[in-house]
């Protein structure tokens, strides 16, 4: 058995960026079906235009329309494409110097096998039908030879009225996320109805969920400690605000519960009591879900519920606030 528990996790978000005048000009061109380069102080036409001149460091302001046909100056085969690449089947990435430009542009080249690519071959832009002002308005490059001459030329123009000032780049990354061995022991314990912590050999503090090292002493926590399912509310908040994904109707209480024998509190729900009656020092006990619903998760504990015992003395938990 692996030391650790793991689960797939996807982290996804959209980057929204302002483009500025130089990249904005380039992306506006793509939307309108033309490729725009920038002329540098050395007289080279670079695509995409650099925002600042590499020699003078002045903003690039001299824009030049270049052709949508050009020459492959380098290429590589992509036998196993990754998510988000222009094709989900094998293809080539290529550096293509467009006619009128002095520096190559990186993009995909749509060919079926590496035998169909060579440095020096003539290619041209395949435009997207719907263009929004993004590098993906160019679907890819394609070999010129395969095309009908009559078809050569610019994309159907889609001039927009406004310049492109913003791009949205969606990002989604997939991980196999692993808990540490100590956290894994904690979650495996929960699947057996036990709450496990670990004690620091140096300072004696008991961490739950256990950490891989004591943050105070920088040594591995080693000794396993089984904790009581009874504890004390050290602090809490009443949730009144609805939010996406909320499972309980507000108002309800989210609290730090210091389990008896532990030195760090765990965050959980306090239910079975009106929200406005929850208080610091209140004694609470774990309420477990039915055993057949258990997994390796803290959700095996449905919530904490008041025990009805007298409140804990402030001195017993003041060092854990």
């Amino acid at each position, binding site marked *: 058995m692996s030391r650790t528990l793991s689960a797939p996790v996807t982290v996804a978000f959209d980057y929204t960026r302002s483009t500025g005048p130089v990249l904005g000009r380039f992306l506006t061109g793509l939307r309108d079906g033309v490729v725009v380069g920038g002329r540098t102080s050395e007289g080279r036409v670079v695509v995409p235009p650099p925002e600042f001149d590499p020699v003078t460091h002045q903003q690039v302001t001299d824009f030049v329309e270049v052709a949508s046909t050009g020459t492959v100056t380098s290429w590589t085969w*992509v036998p196993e494409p990754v998510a988000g690449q222009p094709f989900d089947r094998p293809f080539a990435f290529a550096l293509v110097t467009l006619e009128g430009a002095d520096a190559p542009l990186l993009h995909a080249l749509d060919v079926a096998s590496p035998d169909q690519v060579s440095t020096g071959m003539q290619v041209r832009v395949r435009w997207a039908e719907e263009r929004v002002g993004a590098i993906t308005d160019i679907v890819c490059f394609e070999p010129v030879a395969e095309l009908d001459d009559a078809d050569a030329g610019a994309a159907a123009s889609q001039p927009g009225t406004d310049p492109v000032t913003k791009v949205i780049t969606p990002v989604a990354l997939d991980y196999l996320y692993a808990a540490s061995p100590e*956290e894994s022991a904690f979650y495996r314990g929960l699947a057996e109805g036990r709450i496990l912590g670990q004690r620091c050999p140096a300072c004696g503090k008991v961490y739950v969920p256990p950490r891989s090292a004591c943050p105070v002493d*920088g040594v591995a926590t080693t000794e396993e400690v089984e904790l009581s399912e009874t504890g004390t509310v050290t602090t809490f908040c009443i949730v009144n605000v609805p939010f996406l994904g909320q499972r309980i109707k507000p108002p309800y209480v989210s609290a730090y519960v210091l389990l008896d024998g532990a030195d760090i509190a765990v965050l959980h729900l306090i239910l079975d009591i009106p929200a406005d009656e929850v208080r610091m020092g209140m004694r609470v006990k774990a309420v477990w879900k039915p055993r057949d619903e258990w997994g390796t998760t803290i959700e095996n504990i449905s919530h904490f519920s008041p025990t009805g015992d007298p409140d804990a003395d402030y001195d017993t938990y003041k060092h854990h606030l």
Partner: protein
Amino acid sequence: MREVAVVGFAQRQMKEFDGSPTCVELLVPLFEECYEQTGWTRRDVGFWCSGSSDYLAGRSFSFVQAVDAIGVIPPVNESHVEMDLAWAMYEAWLKIQTGEVDTAVVYAFGKSSAGVLRRTLALQLEPYTMTPLWPDTVSLAGLQARAGIDAGLWDERAMAEVANRSLTDAEKNEYAVRKGGSSVEELLARPVYADPLRKHDCAPVTDGAAALVLAAGDRAREVQDRPAWIDGISHYVDPMSMGTRDLTRSPSAARAAQAVGVAGVEVAELHAPFSHQELVLRRELGLADDVVVNPSGGALTSNPMFSAGGIRIGEAARRIWSGEASRTLGHATSGPALQQNLVCTLEGRS
């Protein structure tokens, strides 16, 4: 300038780390090794600096949790770079130059296997015209390799020679995840993967962590019989875009080497995650023909993200400590196709 030396080094490199992406459980024994090498406790460390990336870990502020492995009572002087260990070391070296501290431990970690590494790294590219195409690390290196082949600067045989020598040297490296040289002919007979690259031309996905210990002047002499004195350290950056630079060259590596001076270097540990990149670096750094390159096997045999560059400096320092060499060089790279380069020369003094 204060004289500063590398006096400690610990590393772990593995194909797949069965642990958390914050690597705390990997870092604790690394620091123990550093304390053993120096006779220090954590209270003797004046400054800490780490290198890592949240994109590798798949969670935000992952370096904050890694601090658990240091211990923070009393509070520590700590910093972080979203870069390789070598750049964390550069920051620590500067910190020691300010006179504020005399000692530092720098560390780095990364669980490359948690995601799809060559894809994750697309997020370090220019975000408007590159990242949306998700050009993966191997493809970008492939474009570079082809450019050199087409220009007649190297060929597939020269690349295979680099791979074969690295795999052979790695047999002596207990941390290398890929090792065992055979012959150039055998390597060339293997299938092409990302044409023109074969799999052995590309560094293996590697998990791991590493730590380096720095100390100034007498603090260094106290803990090492033969400290690896940092004679020069420099880094430069080339443009990120693939179109505006000559991919067969690495001007930033050349400038960094000129800044530190490479005369007399006997051993060079170069951070070249692709075989042809060693050929580029050898030329740009201006290394003499008799310089021993990557006796550890180098990044082609083990390339833990965010540690591999610093490991080159650690390997270069070890050869000073042992007396095998009196002048060595450690190099680290970052960014697409050798975009950023750091060069550090080390020397032993009798």
